[in-house]
């Protein structure tokens, strides 16, 4: 396999909650590792509290990590030291946010939203307006010129999300972090946006880090899937394989719940332990196969090599049961 475009290694993100004598640690992500290659979609899936959004924001340099590394084409980014990034670094990783109503500035025109990143990264110049229009068209908004002078409130959710995608593409990034890009959109529009991302990725050789809780969409559009629970990677591997025969009990639970059948689930609802977390596997308290060993010590990785899309890794003492 070629060297990865983005390599996340042992990433840990922590927040302190409350001061006083015993501030509590909120562990948003713990020793997360995964790779993203060019032309690939890697989906970070999990429920709320899983840490998937946090990881995305660290990659986009909006949040600081406590430890671990994030490397872009082999070069490490200072994710644990500060949030400052020069324009060249910023241009390489861009982000699309969940709520298209909140990610566009209501007082500015669509033109402003595109002209700024184009100018900042040297793609401006005399044909700024036509470049912006072309960018909108590549995101499926045609004719681009008709949208430039409108304000966000005049557009539908799907259209705003396309503007957000066009804006993210303006600096010609290598990595696109898409944080729940379709969660706020109508069902019939979601597929369009995901297909657009796939098309753009192939045309421009990007890598897309897709953050989502929608397993069906992840299976449809992602090459690899990383399943997160309480900030830790439970299982990762080729999307189709992981979702059709999940090895980790948590993945099995997610897949069963998302299937919308009436069959009973392997475990009930419960909150992931993110505050002052106990040792061992975070899913142990809900897992019906859990043993004492699961609640102490480190859980090993079971690695199963595959012929495509990297290895299949399950962090469990009793995988596949």
């Amino acid at each position, binding site marked *: 396999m070629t060297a990865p475009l983005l390599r996340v290694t042992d990433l840990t993100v922590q927040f302190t909650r409350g001061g006083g004598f015993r501030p509590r640690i909120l562990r948003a992500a713990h020793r997360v590792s995964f790779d993203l290659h060019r032309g690939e979609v890697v989906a970070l899936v999990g*429920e709320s509290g899983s840490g998937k959004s946090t990881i995305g924001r660290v990659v986009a340099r909006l949040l600081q990590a406590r430890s671990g590394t994030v490397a872009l084409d082999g070069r490490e980014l200072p994710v644990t030291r500060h949030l400052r990034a020069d324009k060249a670094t910023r241009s390489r990783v861009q982000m699309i946010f969940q709520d298209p109503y909140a990610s566009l500035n209501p007082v500015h025109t669509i033109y402003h939203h595109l002209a700024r990143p184009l100018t900042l990264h040297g793609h401006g110049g005399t044909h700024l307006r036509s470049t912006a229009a072309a960018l909108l068209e590549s995101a499926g908004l045609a004719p681009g010129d008709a949208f430039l002078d409108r304000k966000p409130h005049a557009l539908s*959710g799907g259209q705003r999300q396309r503007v957000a995608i066009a804006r993210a593409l303006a600096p010609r990034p290598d990595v696109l972090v898409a944080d729940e890009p379709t969660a706020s959109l109508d069902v*019939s529009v979601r*597929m369009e946006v995901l297909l657009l991302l796939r098309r753009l990725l192939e045309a421009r050789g990007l890598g897309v880090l897709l953050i989502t*809780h929608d397993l*069906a969409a992840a299976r449809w559009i992602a090459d690899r899937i990383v399943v997160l629970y309480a900030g830790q990677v439970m299982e990762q591997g080729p999307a189709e394989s992981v979702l059709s025969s999940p090895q980790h009990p948590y993945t099995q639970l997610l897949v069963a719940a998302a*299937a*919308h059948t009436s069959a009973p689930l392997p475990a009930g609802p419960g909150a992931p332990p993110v505050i002052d977390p106990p040792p061992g596997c975070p899913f142990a308290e809900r897992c019906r196969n859990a043993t004492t060993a699961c609640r102490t010590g480190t859980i090993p990785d079971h690695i199963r090599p595959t012929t495509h899309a990297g290895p299949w890794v399950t962090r469990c003492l009793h995988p596949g049961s």
Partner: protein
Amino acid sequence: MNDVVLHIQDLRVAYGSTAVLHGASLRVSAGEVLGLVGESGSGKSTLVQGALRMLGRPAVITGGDVILDGQSLFDLDAAGLRRMWWNTVSLVPQNALNALNPMLTIGAHVDDTLLAHGITDAADRRRRAIDAMALVDLLPDTLTAHPHMLSGGMRQRVAIALALLLEPRLVVFDEPTTALDVVVERDILDRIRALQAERGFAAVFITHDISLLLTFADRIAVLYAGRVVEVAPARALGGPSSHPYTVGLLGALPPKLGEDRTAVPIAGVAPRAGQTTPGCAFAPRCTHASPKCEEPQALRALTDHHHVACHRVAGERP
């Protein structure tokens, strides 16, 4: 299932001078779950809340009738309606998670509701409050908690408990699981079903997630551009005699495990709330459109339980 609790007939609602609902009809019986599905701008919340006259200014009802438990809601005055609300029909509102007052404890919410409906004895209220918590598997000490201390799933259960306080005949759930994770959602759905089996109320479940309804609801009503375009038993939805919009909607979903198909988005854009055409609003996006689609399409019965507003599917039957 003959005990029809709610009958909405040809309901028309406008916001100021803009008509948003153009004649919608629905029926719900005791013990059944009627799913109401539609995208943004389709009018699904407007339909149910308008029928119950729970919409604020500038909404106004411009036509039709609504019979709840034998009583026409449009004949009632404000006092009569307030007696109906929460007693006979209750609502678990959209974003119930954030509809709870952050300054009040859960117990205060329950108490306020009971007091507002004339339950003056404090001991009686206390007993009902504990029962309400037990109904949704919450401990009595939840009553002393404030909303922000509870998880999303717990708050949703509180909202359900509040809605069932006075044992209504009909409960409307407006997007109750949209903001919840899939495992918690499943738990809530299981609970609703169990409570319904126990209490026998009729349930209207509004959502944009049609795949959820296919296994959860008994019958499903599909809304498009302010009109009901199809009502069918859940199993029959999406088949060959379904409305083209329903077929398109189901086809735009990512395929499930084991399903052998490609997801195909519906071409075109849905009309904004308030836009109307005399004929079928879906025609511009429909692959089978013909000149006949420009005429008004009434909901026609294919069978007793399956109605479709499409001349191509339902023929000329009345």
